[in-house]
């Protein structure tokens, strides 16, 4: 499509304005994190940058514990979901039966169950099983929460692998496990990686179960940040520094996996 220079200029001005407005809160958060507490409560652009807040946040020993919880729970939930999902997606993609379609749609429908609807039983079950405020408990919840999306995404990637390649492997005497591990996984590695990435992002940012099922021992960064909401905790620079560190890694992941995100979040309905 040909656009006149004037149109392009207009699109550029509008596009950049929108982008900067939408990005402004994040930019302001990062900026505030480099201010001293005194500068932070006076909104202005000029200030003498300092790493004070970052030092303070790190000095609170529990920040590291929260961050570690986030990492362990997100990675654990993702790995567990993949372990369940890879065999499931494999059998659906390569050995479909009459019920495959129905099963896939049913899996999708479990995603529609609102977490609040089942908060009470899960809370009570966790309480009697001693899983409240444990990493194990959250890993299990996160794995189950993302399992439908993970199966769906893997399924769409596996479907693109020609069946002949796997058949050739089978002719050569490969057993199912070898087939999946040595043939399918290397072939679909980018797909599996982006699926894992999406699951990581969703786990990292999850803030319903983590706020309700943890208190101190297993609480991830979402809960740590939430603890800044108390009125006496109005330290804007420290809040910003902690938030920046909590958001930065996942923001970068997100930038790289936008496209897969569309497919994963719409269950492949929009390409």
């Amino acid at each position, binding site marked *: 499509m040909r656009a006149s220079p004037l149109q392009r200029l207009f699109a550029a001005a509008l596009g950049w304005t929108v982008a900067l407005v939408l990005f402004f809160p994040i930019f302001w958060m990062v900026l505030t994190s480099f201010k001293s507490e005194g500068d932070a409560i*006076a*909104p202005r652009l000029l200030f003498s940058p300092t790493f004070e807040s970052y030092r303070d946040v790190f000095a609170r020993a529990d920040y590291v514990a929260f961050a570690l919880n986030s990492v362990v729970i997100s990675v654990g939930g993702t790995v567990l979901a993949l372990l369940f999902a890879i065999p499931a997606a494999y059998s659906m993609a390569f050995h479909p039966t009459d019920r495959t*379609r129905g099963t896939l749609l049913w899996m999708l429908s479990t*995603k529609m169950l*609102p977490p609040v609807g089942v*908060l009470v039983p899960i809370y009570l*079950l966790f309480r009697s099983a001693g899983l409240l405020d444990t990493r194990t408990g959250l890993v299990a919840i996160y794995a189950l929460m993302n399992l439908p999306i993970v199966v769906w995404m893997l399924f769409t990637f596996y479907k693109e692998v020609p069946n002949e390649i796997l058949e050739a492997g089978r002719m050569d005497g490969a057993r199912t496990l070898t087939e999946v591990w040595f043939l399918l996984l290397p072939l679909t590695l980018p797909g599996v990686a982006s699926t894992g990435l999406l699951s990581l992002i969703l786990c990292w940012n999850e803030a319903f179960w983590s706020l309700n099922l943890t208190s101190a021992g297993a609480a991830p960064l979402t809960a740590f940040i*939430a603890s800044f909401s108390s009125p006496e905790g109005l330290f*804007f620079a420290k809040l910003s520094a902690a938030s920046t560190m909590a958001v930065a890694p996942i923001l970068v992941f997100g930038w790289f996996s936008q496209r897969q995100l569309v497919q994963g*979040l719409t269950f492949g309905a929009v390409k």
Partner: protein
Amino acid sequence: MVPSVAVLLAWMIVPLVMTVWFSFQRYNLIDPSMTGFAGIDNYRFLVTDPDFWVSLENTLLLVGSVLIVTVGLGTLLAVLFNQPFPGRNIARVLAISPFFVMPTVSALIWKNLLMHPIYGVFGTLASSVGMQPVDWFADYPLASVIAIVSWEWLPFALLILLTAVQSLDHEQREAARMDGAGPIAQFVFITLPHLSRAIGVVIMIETIFLLTVFAEIFVTTSGGPGNATTNLAFLIYARALLQYDIGGASAGGVVAIVLANIVAFFLVRSIARRLEI
């Protein structure tokens, strides 16, 4: 396939059955004397409780407003970011960034750094042009929550709709242009119909998530002032974990599940139609 189906089945059925079961029980975590079958008492109590109706209204207001903002703006922005202009990819990345920010962070950043009446950016801007700063969360609590949630979900709508716009057939637009259709006519008669399916998907998926918005309310207003920002999710949380009324909370949970299922019914149908297996 069997293990995933089995765990998902357990994950779905067990809590669901328990929720329904509890909703018919007298059950309070700190009052052991309250036991036994309650019949529909929990539901009767729920529907006669003004808080419940307010929370239902707030839930619908929140979902409706955010949908209008995100889908409306999202469609326009998708078309905008489909135009070629210098630095478009970077601008696009900046615009979709809010979606990756965890909800507790975005809520606190908005509440403290932007909307705080004394120290926030908006307040300072207002004072500098001689206007009275607004105490957003005290005066317009629900609107403030809606603003934050819209900011989080606009990038999602933009991302999905942009993907859909990019698959638009160029020859079709070219043909329309040849026939003398202006940009607005092209948008209304070609782009919009093409986007209708993607818009449908965005609406359905956002609705599922928006029905259960929780963290944003938890860290900004805790449902207040009064019950001004209590939605159904927050009401159930307060019933169960602050008042320990398991029976009443479960009855609310059943209502939430029914609401979500109405939406899910349409979503699954619209996706099933496109599924090629």
